[in-house]
């Protein structure tokens, strides 16, 4: 049984790169383009882990994480945020909101998988 990852990012390029990196190691990928869309996809299927960007239209990463953490259904679903190196403030805020961990952009596919393995079975 392979792992299912939900990727939430408004950049098509980023979604494609994530998909490439994850399917390469045999993961199954669900995609969403912002927080609102992410919640819709979640409603259809609970992934094993969520990878989300922060800056997105309609509902940003923080809002999304808060919504997910606020819903008993998804408690326990690990959430990794994509964040830029220099942004400690964002990282902390994400943690406050309930993010499980983070991945630095531009992301290294090996480290991406590492991070996922640390939080998801």
């Amino acid at each position: 049984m392979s792992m299912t990852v939900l990727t939430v990012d408004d950049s098509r390029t980023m979604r494609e790169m994530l998909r490439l990196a994850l399917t390469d190691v045999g993961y199954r990928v669900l995609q969403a383009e912002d927080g609102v869309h992410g919640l819709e996809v979640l409603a259809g299927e609970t992934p094993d882990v969520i990878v989300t960007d922060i800056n997105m239209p309609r509902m940003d990463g923080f809002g999304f994480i808060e919504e997910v953490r606020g819903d008993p259904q998804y408690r326990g679903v690990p959430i990794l945020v994509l964040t830029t190196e220099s942004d400690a403030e964002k990282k902390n805020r994400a943690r406050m909101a309930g993010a499980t961990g983070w991945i630095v952009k531009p992301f290294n596919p090996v480290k991406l998988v590492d991070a996922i393995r640390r939080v998801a079975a």
Partner: protein
Amino acid sequence: MDPLAAIRETFFQECEEQLAELESGLLAMEGGDTDSETINAVFRAVHSIKGGAGAFSLEPLVRFAHVFETALDEMRSGRLAPSADVLKTLLRAADVLADQVRAAHDGAPEDEARSAALAEELKALGPEGASAEVAGTEEAWGDFAFQPLTAVEAAPDAAGGAWRVRFKPRADLYAKANEAALLLRELRRLGDAVVELDASALPPLADLDPEAAYLAWTVTLPGELDETAIREVFEFVDGDCELEIGRDGDTAAADDADDAAPAFDISALLAKVQAAPETLVVEPAPAPRPAPLAKAATTPVDAAQPNPAAANDAQAAAQRKPDTAGATIRVDLERVDRLIDLVGELVINQAMLSQRVMEAGFARASGVAMGLDELEQLTREIQDSVMAIRAQPVKSVFQRMPRLVREVAAMTGKPVRLVTEGEGTEVDKTVIERLADPLTHMIRNAIDHGLESPETRAAAGKPAEGVVRLTAAHRSGRIVIEVGDDGGGINRERVKSIAVERGLIAADAPLSDEEIDNLIFMPGFSTASEVSDISGRGVGMDVVRRSIQALGGRITITSRPGKGSTFTMSLPLTLAVLDGMVVSVQGQTLVAPITAIVETLLPKASDVHSLGGHARVIAIRDSYVPLIDVGMALGYRAEPLAATQGVALLIEGEGGARAALLVDAIQGQRQVVIKSLEANYRQVPGVAAATILGDGRVALILDIDTIVAVSRGADSLRAEKRLAATG
């Protein structure tokens, strides 16, 4: 295609979209938009470009984008006010960013001096001493092959002793969906690990708080391992747990053993559990997931900084702006084109069916006839809906214009403001793609020739800043696009004298003001020496007019001296369908585009006069207009048709020039599906395309302008082109 190369293309496509968002957002702000969502969108656009650029190691782009992003971040957090000057700088930065993106895509060198200069300006906008440098992108994708996670190479550590890791999660760790078990698993992957569970803090089941954390672990790992590798495993949970990493034999390690757990004592545990009826099974593996996290989750949020305000703002903004795009779906363009072809054939078939049924004599009110009427209705609706799929707002073409205006304004030294209206007006994709060049020429022309210099304007009491208006609207089934300026208008004397000089008109030809204005469309009106570099290197308005006509459109110009000029283009909504007047000529059925036809009339003998050798003219109210025998022009007949036996179609062609086409009879008006003649054959002079009528036969669509042009110079189309048969 290499998947990474495909994503790189996607990246550049996305960059174009982001650049468009960036520009329109900045323009909106220039126009007074203060919505926080607008500035956020602008920020995200640059942020997005920077992110992707980093992944592909496009260094100069990343650096510039970073500086740009920093300035925008200042603006979105309210520390930088969006004044007119600031916005102008940002717009120029957007232009530089766009150039860098394209240079990166093409592999061409970028204008470093320009980028550096603008970067300095952007830094000046930013916070003092802010780190405007971005860490180098060492981690580029090209460097990493996709390999499964391998165990970290252990650097032999001389200092020897085994690692002892003491790990006690706090409730928060679980609240963020971290799992101790997974961390322990990752530790095990680093090397041989011995894991000891300390369950001493675990209360009896009855007192167990599912949200609290009670368990702790001590893990022993080989000394050769690098400490950073171990710390990395706990990267995410740092702060949500007690973590001590030390070596065996270190005094520090010994001191850390506050809660030093004795080896897991199952009998002691069982003793505790005896009291409770249920057995509590504790394993080193999956820690019990605490149940309701809601409480744990909300507290951090409330404690957080001024987020609620921002979050509310974002929510409100999301509600204020209804999602205009709605759900969308990406479709292969080929499929859409195929669908449109099929629907076109459906329309033809339905028309044929109707015709056959009528010929078979079914009564108009019979079930069959009525059913067919409904079918026709339905078919039209399907056709309209399908055409709408390919319809796009002209915005995609309009949005290139602001930058063009900025550049031409800079080159001519004339301050110009571009006002656009009707960007949402929709036209078929096929038309939109061919609009860009003509629009570009017209706007350049408006600024270069239309607008006066700031001094002249001031002297005339006009504001120094000239205005160019670009509008689009639907009007009677067509799309009308106007490019107007508030400049000096057309200098009619000059235009007339140039035209006389070039031999385009007779010196004493009586021309109305409108006709003089439209002389600029005549081929040969502007030569290379006339046309400045800005208006396009020798390309005159006649080229523009021909492009518009090739689209089935018309273009005219109106002008008021001292006030300005306006180009008006009228285009069909789609290139696939035409409103036609079906006529008979010498037994042949032909179709004339209705847009060209001004009126139809039955010539009276007294109205028709001979002029010169074979030419005829017909009197239309106060003027004489050439009468063209279509049958002769196309070679269908050798002797001219008597005017009184036919019908004259008064047409308006090139910039107002009029002619009357003499045909045998008018059969009616139809919307016809355009079929290409060139696809399987060749271009035929006098014929624009073909269509299939209700009876299944092919009818030719007239190329009005060629017929008229030729009639001015020759007796028939034979003189223009000759098809030579070989062999």
